[in-house]
């Protein structure tokens, strides 16, 4: 299930899609001052790390923030949020009925469970590559071949899987910010140099670099003979490559709300993010010459103009970026009328921001939090850390309400995952170190609910008992 799928930054950190909670391991050192410190360094282009752990923390923090923003601000994150919002109550409801039914009916519910899992996997946009169905992989291959100048073979599809796209954007964002660092100590530079596999897409593991390198053929391939003689050309081309990749991934993730597909105007196969990226890249390649406003578009992050420029050269006409997010803002505004869930509100605000100030939402960097005022919750090796940026968030009650909504989402997702897949239940409250009675079973996982603390303060036990699941 989506909530258990993770985007990795190696041993350092990981992100469960849909959780809105970047998670950091013990090998990095995140604390409440981390974000302000990193922002100060980034704004002054200083690399302040003096130790390995400080550098790992700096890189992992930025990498995971990209995944968080991919989830909370893009159409694919919004779509998957709605999918899970629909399915989680159904899964928990069925689990309750199954529990209360005679043993003879258990196999019926087991079959239903497998059927439901298949349907969920079919509905979600983000899936790790190893969970993509053969049908979806074949459709992507077939569609990539339409309009291609050279035959696309099955092994050439890998860069265009959704996981590769999201990891490429995270790697590129961190790399771009790292290249902006102008000052550090000799030791600082040496530490950074020996950790290139964490932030430099040219040498990172395959999942991070496959799209990056493939796309470099389009943006830089024709210039490679000049690179040795004119190093400045390489620097300029690399910067443009990085910026263009980030903008095209952003356009590719502009997945419309369900209503647009229900009306039959669009097919989901055409909105496969990797396919859209490939079509955008081909359109870029087809541009007669880089027209005058091109540099202006890059440096102003003017995504709407970029889309307009590429649109005539694309073999498929997508719903414009701005229109997609207007639709999402309307969907969430309507839902918010009857539900004051803060996660819903945050998604609504993100969608509105994309229609009003898209240029501030393109680069998913730390500075972007100051611009768009989204919250940033983190689960660190030492517990929960939360950041808030808007005037409304100064109200301490808001912090609590957001925290409760976030934990509720993650609790329900963890329970649904347990009932659906039969994998061990890991209590999100224990994981976030916000439960004072948690035991090692709670955080390491349990095959059934017996090890839950027998205490009224265990909200999981109380909730499961009250709802008839225990």
């Amino acid at each position, binding site marked *: 299930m989506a909530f258990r799928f993770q985007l990795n930054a190696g041993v350092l950190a990981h992100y469960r899609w849909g959780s809105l909670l970047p998670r950091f391991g013990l*090998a990095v050192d995140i604390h409440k001052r981390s974000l302000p410190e990193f922002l100060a360094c980034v704004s002054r282009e200083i690399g302040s790390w003096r130790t390995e752990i400080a550098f790992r923390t700096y890189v992992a923090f930025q990498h995971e923030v990209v995944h968080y923003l991919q989830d909370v601000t893009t159409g694919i994150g919004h779509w998957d949020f709605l999918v899970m919002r629909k399915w989680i109550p159904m899964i928990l409801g069925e689990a309750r009925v199954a529990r209360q039914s005679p043993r003879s009916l258990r196999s019926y519910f087991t079959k239903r469970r497998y059927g439901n899992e298949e349907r969920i996997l079919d509905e979600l946009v983000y899936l790790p590559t190893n969970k993509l169905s053969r049908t979806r992989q074949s459709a992507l291959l077939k569609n990539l071949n339409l309009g291609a100048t050279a035959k696309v073979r099955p092994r050439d599809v890998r860069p265009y899987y959704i996981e590769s796209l999201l990891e490429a954007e995270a790697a590129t964002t961190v790399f771009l910010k790292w290249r902006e660092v102008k000052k550090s100590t000799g030791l600082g530079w040496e530490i950074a140099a020996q950790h290139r596999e964490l932030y430099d897409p040219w040498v990172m593991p395959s999942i991070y670099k496959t799209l990056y390198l493939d796309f470099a053929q389009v943006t830089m391939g024709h210039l490679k003979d000049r690179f040795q003689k004119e190093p400045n050309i390489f620097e300029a081309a690399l910067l443009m490559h990085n910026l263009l990749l980030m903008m095209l991934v952003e356009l590719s993730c502009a997945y419309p709300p369900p209503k647009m597909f229900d009306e039959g105007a669009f097919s989901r196969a055409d909105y496969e993010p990797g396919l859209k990226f490939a079509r955008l890249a081909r359109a870029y390649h087809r541009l007669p010459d880089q027209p005058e406003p091109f540099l202006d578009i890059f440096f102003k992050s003017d995504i709407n103009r970029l889309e307009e420029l590429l649109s005539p050269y694309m073999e498929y006409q997508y719903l414009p970026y701005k229109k997609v997010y207007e639709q999402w803002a309307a969907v969430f505004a309507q839902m918010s009328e009857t539900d004051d869930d803060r996660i819903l509100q945050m998604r609504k605000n993100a969608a509105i921001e994309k229609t009003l100030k898209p240029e501030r939402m393109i680069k998913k960097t730390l500075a972007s939090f100051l611009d768009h005022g989204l919250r940033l919750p983190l689960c660190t090796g030492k517990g929960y850390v939360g950041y808030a940026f808007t005037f409304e968030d100064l109200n301490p009650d808001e912090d609590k309400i957001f925290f409760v909504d976030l934990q509720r989402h993650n609790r329900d997702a963890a329970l649904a995952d347990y009932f659906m897949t039969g994998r061990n239940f*890991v209590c999100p409250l224990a994981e976030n170190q916000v439960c004072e009675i948690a035991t090692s079973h709670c955080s390491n996982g349990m095959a059934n609910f017996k090890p839950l603390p027998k205490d009224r303060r265990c909200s999981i036990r109380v909730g499961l008992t009250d709802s008839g699941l225990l």
Partner: protein
Amino acid sequence: MHSTEFTDADIQLLHADLEKSISAEFARPSGAEGLKLVGTLVAGFIATKVLLPVLCGFTSRFLYDRYKDIQVTSQAERAREDLLTAKPINDSDRVASEVLEREMTEKLMQDGLNEHRARTIVIDLIRKVEDKSQH
């Protein structure tokens, strides 16, 4: 083998064990599938930063003082070379095990391990090195 000489094979063997222990610690809390992906690179260097000073400590106080605070691979490389070419010394010039235990535990804690686990790993390492130097 003289009691304080270490070979490249000794270093590799001890390093592999130590790296495994440290990797397991980092994977412990969440059990996330992806944690192993780039983890061996990180855990591998943390292992280097602890192993080489311990071996230096068993060889001579001078080497230990020089390499007890390795931060980058170039320092680690120099430490390894000096260690492999170091002349045998008297037992009295060794760094005491208690000092190695205390200082290397702190080092592992700086890299994120909790004190209990860090100490356990360092004690285990010192025991293995002692065993090797007695053969």
